């Protein structure tokens, strides 16, 4: 039942398999120069370059990996957000909105519109606590006043984001009564603040959002940025305030920048994909090569074990392991890699069996090279083509499994995150914030697609015999 794969160089007799151990005989090199021989790898490379889908895939995977590797500089100079910096929003913000990339100033200048002159209403040339306070109030009012006519209807008030209704404090007598009686702010209680009783709340009526948030915020800003300790900010000090940055892909419910988290999550997802593949590669290649090379009874036993394990609900054991041993990321690599090595072992065994009767192996045996050395120095390098192809196709499979575990809450744990974990978070609020599941899902799908295209392209390039056309 074992698949015997053809030699990487197929029946193309012109290219004799060369050990990739680097040493090229000078005479052979000269001969190559003369007849312009194409090696297997050069040939494969040319075929790969011609495959547009595979090249696009390679490019995308490369771009994703670069983003993952360059996470630090990207965060520092690009997105300006920290992946785990919570801004305590209860609503996720839509893609393209702004927020200030620091927890302490989470409400400051949220839309990026405040300038010194705007805040300094009385043209005193200085910004004191009162001005900042006032700026917050106006900002809140404008946010509520959707039709921009300077007065609020109940509908406008009601449609305010959730942050408003909890953090907003109507500043009037009635409010104080409500607050004293500990009654919940419900329905139109706030309209008792409507002084002229025309059914609208005017700016003067509202005093929205004062005590709780902006009062403290104003004092906090002054205490941090009023370096001259005058009690107000000068234009120069104002420049020192953190600027709002754009959340290109929106934020999650805690106000964390989704783009930053996506890049960070990609880092983990790709790392898990690569490392678990490496684990599966090591186990599978060793197992398969040993079975294939030694042959006989040992081969029979080792391959029977593989056959049996094929039918096992491995992923359930992995789930159990992850549940039980607390989502350790190293364990995740090992567990996922340990699940994926079976096919690799089969492929390598097939390759090794077809290679081991060739002259170069006999030659090695004659001069007394040890068995492990023959396997690892001579056989495996020559079987590298199919191994690389299969390893490339293992990466998306492992990434998918990691995402699957993280989605169940069993993989990567906070404060770390991965695309699967992000998708899991997004699912819980997908009605309110569809972008939260859309971006990680898209990132995952595009990466998997690229890796699959790349794997297919590599197979076509390295294994022309396997190509189904």
């Amino acid at each position, binding site marked *: 039942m074992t698949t015997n794969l053809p030699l990487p160089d197929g029946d193309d007799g012109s290219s004799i398999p060369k050990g990739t151990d680097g040493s090229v005989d000078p005479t052979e090199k000269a001969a190559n120069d003369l007849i312009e021989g194409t090696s297997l790898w050069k040939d494969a490379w040319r075929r790969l370059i011609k495959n547009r889908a595979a090249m696009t895939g390679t490019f995308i995977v490369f771009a994703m990996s670069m983003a993952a590797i360059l996470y630090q500089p990207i965060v520092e100079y690009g997105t300006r957000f920290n992946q785990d910096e919570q801004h305590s929003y209860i609503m996720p913000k839509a893609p393209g909105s702004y927020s200030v990339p620091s927890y302490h100033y989470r409400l400051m200048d949220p839309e990026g519109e405040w300038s010194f002159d705007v805040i300094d209403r009385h043209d005193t040339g200085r910004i004191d606590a009162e001005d900042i306070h006032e700026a917050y109030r106006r900002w809140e009012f404008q946010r509520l006043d959707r039709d921009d006519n300077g007065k609020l209807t109940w509908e406008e008030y009601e449609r305010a984001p959730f942050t408003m209704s909890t953090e907003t404090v109507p500043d009037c007598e009635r409010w104080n009564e409500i607050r004293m009686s500990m009654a919940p702010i419900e329905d139109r209680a706030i309209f008792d603040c409507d002084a002229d009783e025309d059914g609208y709340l005017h700016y003067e009526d509202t005093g929205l959002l004062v005590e709780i948030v902006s009062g403290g915020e104003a004092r906090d800003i002054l205490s941090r940025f009023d370096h001259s300790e005058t009690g107000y900010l000068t234009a120069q000090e104002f420049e020192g305030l953190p600027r709002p940055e754009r959340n290109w892909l929106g934020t999650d419910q805690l106000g964390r920048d989704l783009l930053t988290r996506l890049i960070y999550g990609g880092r983990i997802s790709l790392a898990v994909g690569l490392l678990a593949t490496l684990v599966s590669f090591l186990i599978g290649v060793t197992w398969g090569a040993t079975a294939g090379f030694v042959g006989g009874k040992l081969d029979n036993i080792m391959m029977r074990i593989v056959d049996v394990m094929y039918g096992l609900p491995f992923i359930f054991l992995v789930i159990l392991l992850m549940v039980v041993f607390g989502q350790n990321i190293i364990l995740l690599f090992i567990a996922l890699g340990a699940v994926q090595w079976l096919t690799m072992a089969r492929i390598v065994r097939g390759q090794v069996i077809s290679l081991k009767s060739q002259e170069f192996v006999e030659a090695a045996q004659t001069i007394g090279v040890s068995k492990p050395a023959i396997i690892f120095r001579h056989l495996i390098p020559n079987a590298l083509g199919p191994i690389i192809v299969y390893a490339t196709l293992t990466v998306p499979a492992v990434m998918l499994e990691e995402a699957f575990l993280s989605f*169940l809450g069993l993989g990567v744990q906070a404060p770390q995150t991965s695309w699967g974990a992000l998708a899991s978070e997004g699912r819980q609020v997908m009605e309110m914030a569809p972008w939260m599941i859309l971006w990680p899902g898209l990132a995952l799908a595009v990466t998997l697609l690229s890796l*699959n295209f790349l794997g297919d392209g590599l197979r076509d390039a390295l294994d022309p015999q396997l190509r189904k056309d």
Partner: protein
Amino acid sequence: MTRFILRRSIASVFVIFTIIIISLWITRLAPSNPCLEERQVQACTCVKMHDLDRPVFPLYSPPVLMPLDSCEYWQPDSEWVIIPFSFDFPIPGTDPLSVGPIHYMGISEWGNTQAAIYLRTLARGSLGDSMITDRTVLETLGAALPYTIQLGLQALLIALLIGIPAGLLAGLRQNTITDYSVMTVAMIGVSIPNFVLGPLLILLFSLHLGWFTAVGWYTWADSVLPSITLGLFYAAYVARLTRGGVLEVIRKDYIRTARAKGLSEQIVVMRHALKGALLPVVSYLGPAFAALLAGSVVVEEIFSLPGVGTHFVRSALNRDYNLVLGTIIMYSTLLVFLNLVVDILYTVLDPRVSYEDE
């Protein structure tokens, strides 16, 4: 053939036994225990069982955990159970409550003893009682299994019904625009994880269009979205396999012979090519079952279905040892059995493969 089946069965029993032992020790080595859902809180908790007459989600209400002194209704033989904090070491009989169910299902015993107790239970042909709910494991799984099986079969049906025709079409019209578009769609299909597809389907068909309910399983219609979510990935994969199979078979001599005989293209494809072309699909069915069962864990989670997968994850999180082990045993048995069936099916389809000479 009989010898083959016999040998495989014996090997399977051995394999399942190994899995049981491994899982037994994994669960027992885990921190925490069945009665501490919150992990590490009270030294002793009082667990009230809820009545579980409805097969709807949630399958069981989580137990209400209370500190011991608030367990006013507790009586040794009532539905309230007192469970000790530690199971890592045996608790000496000094505990005044040890006359009661403190040795609840033996979890205060040493790991070896616990394993022995479990194996003895198994030997009696029982999977034991759930440690959290008041049902036996067999009852729980029996109630959940139909959902999972139905989900799996429907998904498989979708996979085969979409995948095989699509793969045939692509393979027979190789290198045409049909081929390229089918294969691109299939590639996209195998790249979208089901836990992304599922929520998106809910978003579109349940929340926006309102055609299906978003969660739960009450009528057949509720199983449509989960089955599609689970099946589409495999449809894409089956399409790829079928196309590969068709391309391999279509240039074989016997197809040329069939054509030379003057058979219509339809008969050549349907009667001659299809059988050979489906071989890769058949051999994929074994792994596909395993993958479908694993996938159904996520799909059941997304759609809040009362299937085995939901039980598995919850019981593992709640440390309901018996239910975890029962689920694993059931999964392994199911898979090993299905794999055996697939292998036999394979010999029927491909007489060249024979297990006699092994």
